[in-house]
């Protein structure tokens, strides 16, 4: 008997659980302007704090 492709039982992969769509950042003034500004501000303030702390270690400022 000729074995045809269609007589081979079809093996199905178990269905993977579908992932929920990844939430997108809304295109609002808050996310486009305020949040980046906040990140930059925090970064600059942190750098200044660290510079002051290191000046203390160097003996320029006395703790």
């Amino acid at each position, binding site marked *: 008997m000729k074995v045809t492709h269609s007589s081979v039982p079809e093996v199905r992969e178990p269905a993977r*659980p*579908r*992932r*929920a*769509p*990844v*939430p*997108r*950042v*809304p295109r609002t003034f808050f*996310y486009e302007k305020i*949040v*980046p500004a*906040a*990140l930059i501000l*925090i*970064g600059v*303030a*942190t750098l200044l*704090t*660290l510079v*002051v*702390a*290191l000046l*203390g*270690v160097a*003996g320029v*400022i*006395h*703790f």
Partner: protein
Amino acid sequence: MPVNFLLSLLAAAVSGIFSLVVLNRYRERGGMHLLVWGIGLVLYSLSTLAQAVLFQGWNALFFRLWYWAGAMIVAAWLGQGTIHLLVRRGRIAMTLLGVLTVASLVALVLVLRVPLDPGGGNFTLPNWISNYSKVLPPSDTPEGVVRRLTVLFNVYGTVGLVGGAIYSGWLFLRKQILPNRVLGNVLIAAGGLSNALGGTLARLGGPEFLPLSQLLGAGLIFAGFWLAVSGAPQPAAQRARV
């Protein structure tokens, strides 16, 4: 009852609850960053609790605990957690953790051995934090090495915690995904900055703000963590079970 006593107690409670949440998450999911953060938050809670105890009067053991856990190493452990989250290549994070562990133990030995001078108005209630630095030897003496080490621990921790949160927040913002993680990281960075500012102000002669900065720091980091882990995308089937 001094306001700073209450603020210290509140900071201890917030960071204590936060540490339980993080360590419970580590028990359920694993992840070295959660374990290291959990250790950092236990140190946070212990130090602010010791701080509250010191508002009731002098105690050398609690002063040493406060200085070691709080002033010296807590920021470094929190920053180390973020380094574990972000640096996945090779064994860099584990090597840094090894160095931090050894350095923390060396710091503990130094703090246990450092001579303290609480007399002569160096430790006075109600606001002992105003004069805490005079209890320790000056930083230009051999015993004052603990004070110089404190700054180095804090610089490392702040770069790790705040820098890591800013980097993560910026990354999600650039990819335009997961707004909860963007905001969560902004809050974590702000909390880390609050702690760093409070610590630096304390060393520069403005220590009255320290307990407030600690409470703000713990609250902001907790809120940021909560926001960042909530709303994470899950498989649809798993969501259906919840």
